[in-house]
């Protein structure tokens, strides 16, 4: 009744904005001079890094394969602590949040440099292809890396996608071609080439095209009248081309330059309303950038890393049938960004390192609507850190600062943000023989209001404060290896507290929404994982288990109906298992996902209950050597039991899918 006329536009736009995401990437040289390596990272092939002060997990090529990762979001579902919100299908938005902090607290980095979307603050991890990633890692809390750029160091959690690097040893070049065919007419083709570019160094180019109709069947639950239906308007077409050049300058410097282009056209999966099934919204994206990173070790003690980037992102959203006077909604946005980053690391003493860095970013958003604010934001992230690292103890301390200056063409710009946020971490190898580490960290991080939060049509509010998150975490890591068996275990308990959450709340009516700093959330949680494997013998079995407990309580208003209720889309219990075995006959993998029950609304009433679900998948693959080339054939079955479920209410997930992949490597 009091359902105002404005509702539909507003809500549609809010929903739409969730999809207005970018898939841009950046690269960073990992050509850190070897002198410094012992300082910077202790790399491990395992999923867990035992030396990290925070929970840090890494999925390498084997895990990406065993989890049938087509999109980077697929593998993240198997990592403890990651809550993936998935609107279903290839084109459905996929975001990741950790520790009850909200997806905007999770930064995404491509090759170690942050990817930003100043408009929505959310990055769609579904837009990253599994083929472009050498590995995917996730760190919740402070990182050990002293050369981490300031913008990333200031984030509560970082998902880092590392790109493919040239894999040429003696040979002059290496080429790879791959074809995939899967259910719901999903086709993808990939071509990749690594080659020596004379004195310039080595280069890699990769191109990938994906096209799907995505019209998977689903069950529309409706009491005793449930119906079998098919997704419509769920087609996706994507093209990605990128090339990178890796050069060495003198003995102590390395330079990486990358050019990247991504383009997509897709339908947007619609909310499955009863009786009305007219999915018709379309989305177009293009994203291009160029960037360079120079790493120089000046002396034994001083190392510097400089990065520069320029990129643009174009988004067009179209709803061709709207009951407004224009008859449609056609929003076009262009976001341009220039970025400069510098970090210097100085070894003060044998075990003591200090670093300082500054990131400067200039972002401008233009849109086609008459109501657009056309904001430009200058962000200065600076950071100073100190680290003590002995054989058994690592202690880090860091102070981050963010400063913004904002300008708008229309309406008043937001005030400058000027905030300090510290982090600290400890990793102590208590019992070297058993490989037992204790670790603890505390971090205070910010999530700045996005352009939408501040300026979007009527709902934006320019006086928003940043969200502030404080996380304390402590845990143990055990890692051991003997006679071909290795195993690792970790368990970390944490407590997080988010204050001044930025949320869209109804104003005087459900129709009139407005952004507000409202309320806080306290989360207690546990993230644990076990990994084991056997490397000797003809069969190499590998098992990875993880379990997450999350109790995220709404602590906004003790008088409200949602007081102490669990955050929406946050199961208290979730678990995963991945097992695979490599051998000479055929490699096989199996994966299992489980999510406990949760609610799709901050009010945990029965109307908003989402039942628990599980999903099982499996894969088989084998390499063949033919005349010096390697041919790999792979068959995967995703959602083997054809489990019908929704992760986001009214956005069904696909049922059973098959996928065949053929790869030729020359």
């Amino acid at each position: 009744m009091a359902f105002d006329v404005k509702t539909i536009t507003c809500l549609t736009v809010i929903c739409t904005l969730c999809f207005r995401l970018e898939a841009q990437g950046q690269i960073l040289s990992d050509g850190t001079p070897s002198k410094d390596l012992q300082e910077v990272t202790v790399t491990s092939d395992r999923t867990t890094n035992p030396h990290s002060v925070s929970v840090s997990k890494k999925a390498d090529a084997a895990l990406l394969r065993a989890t049938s990762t087509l999109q980077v979001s697929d593998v993240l579902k198997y990592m403890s602590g990651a809550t993936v919100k998935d609107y279903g299908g290839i084109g459905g938005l996929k975001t990741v949040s950790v520790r009850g902090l909200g997806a905007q607290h999770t930064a995404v980095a491509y090759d170690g440099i942050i990817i930003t979307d100043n408009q929505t603050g959310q990055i769609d991890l579904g837009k990253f292809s599994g083929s472009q990633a050498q590995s995917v890692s996730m760190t919740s809390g402070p990182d050990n890396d002293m050369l981490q750029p300031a913008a990333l160091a200031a984030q509560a959690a970082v998902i880092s996608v590392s790109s493919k690097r040239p894999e040429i040893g003696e040979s002059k070049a290496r080429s790879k071609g791959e074809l995939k065919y899967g259910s719901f007419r999903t086709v993808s083709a990939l071509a990749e080439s690594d080659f020596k570019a004379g004195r310039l160094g080595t280069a890699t180019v990769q191109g990938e095209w994906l096209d799907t109709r995505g019209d998977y069947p689903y069950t529309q639950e409706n009491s005793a009248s449930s119906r079998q239906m098919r997704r419509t308007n769920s087609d996706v077409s994507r093209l990605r081309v990128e090339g990178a050049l890796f050069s060495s300058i003198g003995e102590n410097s390395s330079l990486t330059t990358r050019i990247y282009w991504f383009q997509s056209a897709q339908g947007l999966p619609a909310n499955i309303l009863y009786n009305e099934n007219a999915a018709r919204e379309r989305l177009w994206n293009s994203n291009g950038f160029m960037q360079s990173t120079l790493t120089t070790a000046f002396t034994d003690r001083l190392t510097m890393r400089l990065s520069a980037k320029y990129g643009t992102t174009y988004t067009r959203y179209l709803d061709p049938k709207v009951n407004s006077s224009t008859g449609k909604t056609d929003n076009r946005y262009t976001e341009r960004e220039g970025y400069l980053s510098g970090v210097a690391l100085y070894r003060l003493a044998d075990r003591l390192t200090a670093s300082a860095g500054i990131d400067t970013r200039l972002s401008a958003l233009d849109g086609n609507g008459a109501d657009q604010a056309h904001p430009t934001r200058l962000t200065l992230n600076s950071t100073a850190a100190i680290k003590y690292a002995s054989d058994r103890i690592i202690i880090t301390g860091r102070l981050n600062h963010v400063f913004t200056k904002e300008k708008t063409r229309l309406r008043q710009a937001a005030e400058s943000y000027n905030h300090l946020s510290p982090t600290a971490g400890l990793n102590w190898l208590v019992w070297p023989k058993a490989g037992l580490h204790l670790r603890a960290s505390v971090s205070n991080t910010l999530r700045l209001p996005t352009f939408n939060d501040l300026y979007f049509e009527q709902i934006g509010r320019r006086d928003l404060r940043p969200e502030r998150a404080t996380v304390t975490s402590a845990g143990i890591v055990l890692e051991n290896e003997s006679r071909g068996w290795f195993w690792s275990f970790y368990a970390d308990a944490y407590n997080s507290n988010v204050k001044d959450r930025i949320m869209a709340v109804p104003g005087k009516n459900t129709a009139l929404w407005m952004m507000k700093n409202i309320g806080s959330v306290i989360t207690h949680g546990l993230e644990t994982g076990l990994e084991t494997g056997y490397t000797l013998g003809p069969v190499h079995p590998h098992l990875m288990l993880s379990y997450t407990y999350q109790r995220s309580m709404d602590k906004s208003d003790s008088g409200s109906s949602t007081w102490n209720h669990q955050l929406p889309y946050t199961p208290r219990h979730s678990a995963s298992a991945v097992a695979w075995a490599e051998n000479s006959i055929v490699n096989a993998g199996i994966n299992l996902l489980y999510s406990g029950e949760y609610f799709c609304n901050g009010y945990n009433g029965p109307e908003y209950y989402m039942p628990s679900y599980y999903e099982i998948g499996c894969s088989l693959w084998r390499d063949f050597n033919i005349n010096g080339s390697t041919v790999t054939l792979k068959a995967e079955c995703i959602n083997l039991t054809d489990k019908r479920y929704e992760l986001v209410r009214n956005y069904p997930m696909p049922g059973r899918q098959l996928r065949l992949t053929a790869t030729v490597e020359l």
Partner: protein
Amino acid sequence: MRKVNHILLSALLLTLSCDPEPVLLKHSEIVADGDHTGIFVLSEGLFNRNNSTLAWIDFETGAVDSWKSPTGTSYDCFEKVNGRRLGDTANDMILYGSHLYIVVSESSTIDILDATTLKSVKQIPMSRDGRPSEPRRITASGDYVYVCSFDGTVTRIDTLLLTADRTINVGRNPDGICVANGKLYVSNSGGLDFNNPDCTVSVIDLNSFTETKRIEVRQNPGSIYSDGKNVFVVSRGIYDYGKNDYDTRLHKIDAENDVVTETFNIPILTMDAHDGIAWFYGYGPGGTIQMLDLERGEIINSDFITDGTRIQCPYGIRVEPRSGKVYVCDAADYVTPGSLFCFSPEGRLLYKVTNIGINPNTITFCDNKVTLRRYAGKPEPKGHVDRVFEYMPAPGQFVNLMPQYEEGDDAQTMAQKCLEAFQSGEMITLGAFGGYVTVGLRSTIHNLEGKDFRIDGNAFNGSSEPGVVWVSSDENHNGLPDDKWYEIEGSEQKAGRSVADYTISYTRPAHEDDHTPWTGSDGRSGSVLHNKSHSQYYYPLWYESDAVEFTGTLLPDNITQENDIWIMKSFEYGYVDNLTNNTENALFDIEWAVNPDGTPANLESIDFIRIQNGVIGCNERTGELSTEVSTIYNLNPKSE
């Protein structure tokens, strides 16, 4: 003592309000209200969650129906009875005649329920060119209900046929509709253009169903209410995000001259009124119920509630005009289930129903008895028809409506619709003389002792539109009605009063509203007269040819006029739609089948039936005589 009771009661209220089950909490012994049997409360649910619900409060039992859905997620009478849910954002409803019409905005449908059982008898999808119309509000007058939709239209629904018969354009995003002085008033909000809303009220003449005027009002008109003489419309203006509020006005429109006579500066969103007094509330949480003198435009009571009862967020209001009781819906915080409050005319809480649904928005009084039965699965198809081979109606006033023709339909889809009608007990029309339908039986009906089959129509003695029956046996066992046909000899053929093989041809008229001319094989001619009650094309729209010819048995004229009353005399026996269903002479015996020469066919069994209108007749009041046919039953259980 009283105070203690109060504390106890509050404690009880607190505990119960956590219970998701709807509970009626009495503060007074009386729940009933006048002659009403109860009230329906519609809840729109949360946007895009498909969770609109309908609640029923029975005044006789003083209880709220609290059937729980199998998934345990909702308390919904609609789901209980229909085995499905209403859909998304049920925005309005009206009880009119014997039906309850529910407007489901985001699902873009009108669900029509039988008011006594709440069974959905029809769902009308509302869309144009694949664009959901988003129906918003509903009102009724005469034989029609009227729905305004966000796509800038008003649709008229025939309450007899339960079909949307016409749609006309009005202003942008209409968001309120009411009837006054033989006219419809529609508030054109234009709210989907936030900074450029509409600012008009459309006036529609009910007789011609055409828009006659647009009255200029302030921007973004919404709720509209009529007291018969005047129309009151709330104009919301443009929302001030700085103040976080609307600056609303209430316009008074004189329904005689259709001009704005007065504008009151009142913080109003929605109202209900009786006897010159409006009970209203403004936007948002914490809104109080206030009273307004509609004559003077003065607030006469700034807080109607006198006993300290707090309503978190008023979301719907109704005043019972006789008892003066005021019913208010409370949406609480929009996500938790809301409540219904019933106040005495003095503003004291009489009772409260908690957990009535999420965002309850509409209250409707019910005067008929309501019996709710739990959905027991899809109903078994009625009767003995399982195929419709041919549906060939002659032109007629119900043609293209029964069954409903929709763009793109052809002979096959129309036949399928007929099958659905046969199996659900709905009527189909055969149009004027000669129109016929050919059906296949679920199993062979044998010629046993006594009557063998029954064909339902809508006749009673004195209102007969007789159809001649033909039967056929599947002699070649190919399942198709390509065997020999035999006529069922009714009383008129037997008495020699009928004409065999009479041929008639009809021509498609140039315009929808024109009469449909016919000529007969004996040189007679005439027209199927177009009448005002049914404005659609009478010529079957899926026929490709512009002329159509039928041959059949012509029965004697049965229309007579006695003292200004038209009587359509029933024949003695042997015809469809001739006598009251299931009375002895309305039933059929296979024994009556005859060869073309009139000798008994001595059929053992039949597999196909054809029914053909046997009369040419037209009267000015009720239009042409057109046989209506419904379910066919096998009366011989043994032959099943």
